[in-house]
């Protein structure tokens, strides 16, 4: 039973495993499982094999007259490059690295917006409190709960992966499966 659970958790990670995209710790866990599981070893080899087949495909190139056809297409359409609008120019300036004055402008804008907002909110809230005669209950969000431990995070990662492949255990179509495993 333990092997079954391990396979269900490991197989969704095998694609990232063959790409070297897992964290060092998770990759080690997967490696240890794969070393002792012929089914998952086979799936990992197959995933690497598909990547190799696709990577080995011939690179196709456009026709020799691609540029001339494109030039004619642009000319026929009377296409002109899009001139940036005022909004786009402002946006470009705003996001440009090292824009002078951006921090100051941002602070001023935030101040000008936030201060009236706080005043209005406080006024309305005071009114609401008065209306219920001081019995208003403020519910606190628990969204900022203490962070989960690493083990819990890894568990959740496994579960997330298992969610989209819970009905898919790849061993059942592998030739290496033993009859005892076929019920998987």
């Amino acid at each position, binding site marked *: 039973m333990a092997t079954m659970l391990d396979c269900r958790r490991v197989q969704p990670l095998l694609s990232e495993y063959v790409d070297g995209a897992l964290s060092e710790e998770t990759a080690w866990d997967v490696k240890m499982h794969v070393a002792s599981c012929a089914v998952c070893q086979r799936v990992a080899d197959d995933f690497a094999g598909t990547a190799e087949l696709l990577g080995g495909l011939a690179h196709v190139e456009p026709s020799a007259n691609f540029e001339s056809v494109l030039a004619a297409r642009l000319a026929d359409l009377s296409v002109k490059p*899009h001139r940036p609008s005022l909004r786009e120019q402002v946006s470009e300036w705003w996001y440009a690295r090292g824009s002078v004055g951006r921090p100051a402008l941002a602070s001023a804008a935030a101040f000008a917006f936030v201060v009236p907002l706080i005043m209005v909110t406080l006024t309305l809230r005071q009114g609401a409190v008065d209306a219920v005669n001081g019995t208003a209950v403020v519910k606190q969000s628990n969204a900022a709960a203490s962070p989960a431990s690493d083990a819990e995070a890894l568990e959740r990662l496994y579960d997330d992966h298992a969610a*989209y492949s819970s009905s898919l255990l790849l061993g059942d179509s592998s030739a290496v499966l033993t009859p005892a495993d076929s019920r998987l």
Partner: protein
Amino acid sequence: MNLARSLTLTHSDSTLIARCQKADIAAFNEIVARYKGKIFNYVYRMTGSMEDAEDLTQEVFVRMYTNIGSFRAEASLSTWLFRIAGNLCVDAFRRGKKERGVVTSLDAPTRGDDPDEAHGTRDVPDWSHEPTALLSRKELGAEIQGALQKLPPKLRSAVVLHDIEGLAYDEIAVAEGIPLGTVKSRIFNARVALREHLRPYLES
């Protein structure tokens, strides 16, 4: 001449974009020369048709030219072009004109414009007796392209961008406009399907 050419080729994407935004046609042509191969290859693997790939790749650069003013320097030109190309492929599939290989009748004539495809036939391969070692690269390429065509376009795009175009997971997330986790699951699911379709070539 050679020195001038090599200097030209060293222009960064951001430099070329800045020039292109000032209607510098030479910069535009250089961007086309730099990326037409990658975009064409991606679109071809998506559509399975050289003709459609040519047409859609042309459209990618038309869109780039007309929208270059709204391109933000922080983004990668490469991922932006792949995003335009992917959207155009999806539009083409929705119009139902470009998708091939999924519902194509075996009796329908082949187009004969596929470099990986065996000429003139659309026989169902009998892999059980096929000596895969004897398959030519061309025939193997046709089988792999056929397997790609059987994938849903979203899975196909993710696995083509990763395994053929060499984009990293996070680059695909930007190009496709999807979360990183979705990229991983699409590539995983694509490989699960490809594993079934290409089993004879994986066992050899």
